[in-house]
């Protein structure tokens, strides 16, 4: 009887441990999206930094939900985190592309001015 109770307790403990450690399959993509946004410099772009923070917060929330056995909610939170991370990434890239475009236009203008300066009136 005691042995059965011990086995039941061990099984319950094992189940509890597995429920706290198992994360939804979309955890890795969300994590990767956050890393990608971080890599392109989202922290340096205010709007992107905000969404990167949201993504990280949702990742933590997803882990918490998973620990509490709310795997569906955890999965949805991870999708939100991934979406925010992707948004942060795109905002950063857009800011960089905009800066490049401005610089390219300035180069064209400078070339035109230099050309004009070389020509006598």
């Amino acid at each position, binding site marked *: 009887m005691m042995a059965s109770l011990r086995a039941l307790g061990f099984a319950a403990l094992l189940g509890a441990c597995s429920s706290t450690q198992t994360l939804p399959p979309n955890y890795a993509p969300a994590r990767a999206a956050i890393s990608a946004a971080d890599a392109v410099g989202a922290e340096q772009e205010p709007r992107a930094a905000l969404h990167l923070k949201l993504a990280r917060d949702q990742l933590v929330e997803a882990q918490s939900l998973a620990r509490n056995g709310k795997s*569906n909610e955890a999965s*949805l939170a991870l999708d939100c985190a991934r979406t925010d991370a992707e*948004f942060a990434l795109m905002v950063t890239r*857009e800011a960089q*592309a905009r800066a490049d475009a401005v610089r390219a236009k300035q180069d064209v203008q400078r070339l035109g001015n230099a050309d004009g300066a070389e020509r006598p009136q």
Partner: protein
Amino acid sequence: MRTSFVALSLVSLTALACASTGPTPELLDARRAYETARVAPEARYAPERVLEAKRALERAEYAHANEPGSFQEKSLAYIAGRRAELAVVYGQYEADRRVRWTADAQYKAREDVLRREAEKNAAETRRVLEGTRATLGTVQGNFGDEQQQGRQDAPSAESARRTVITLDGSALFVANKSELVPSGRQKLDQVAKTLKDGTDEISVLGHTDAEGDGETNRRLSQERADAVRAYLVERGVAPDRIKAVGRGETEPIVANASPEGRAGNRRIEIVVEKRQAP
């Protein structure tokens, strides 16, 4: 009383039902975000992203229909709203890239024009430079020709200043002697007549052929020169203007190999040089 209670209960239940079945703020935001993305000018660069946002919104609407106000509805609406914003940002990103491509193309085109102009200017400069070099070469050539002409003119001037009268030795002297023959005297008479009134310096140079001893030839040439000088002085040429020099066989004008050549080398040269101004 009973009727009032029932009516109040119905109103409360209806209000509760409406509150529970209305879209969540997240869904409302998602709808607005999607509409914004759908009509945004940048969206034309991101049609696939707009479509993704639409599908995300449809999933949120579906969740709202099935389980209004649920965590799933809120999450899917949140995702839909973010996808819509993402579509706009992506469209802006593509627009930025197109602006950059256009600017780069303009820059390259302008650079090509400037390069072609620079090459054209360089070619023109080279052409002018080559023309200048050619002109310079011509000028230098002309200058060289003039210098050469000047050098050629110099002997002429020298010739004008110096006159050489060459007389055949055979026509003046007896063979191997310094004695003048009568025909020789007549020739010298003409020379004396020409020279006696002038002030030019006169050198009488005697030359022989290469036959015989060199010293003998030199002495003979000197004696013949002396004879001519003496005759010219006799005919009125001032003695201080005239000198006699025997050159012997040292200055042949033709080869001594033939009798004709030797006859040509036996000669008297009367060199008349104008006195140079002091």
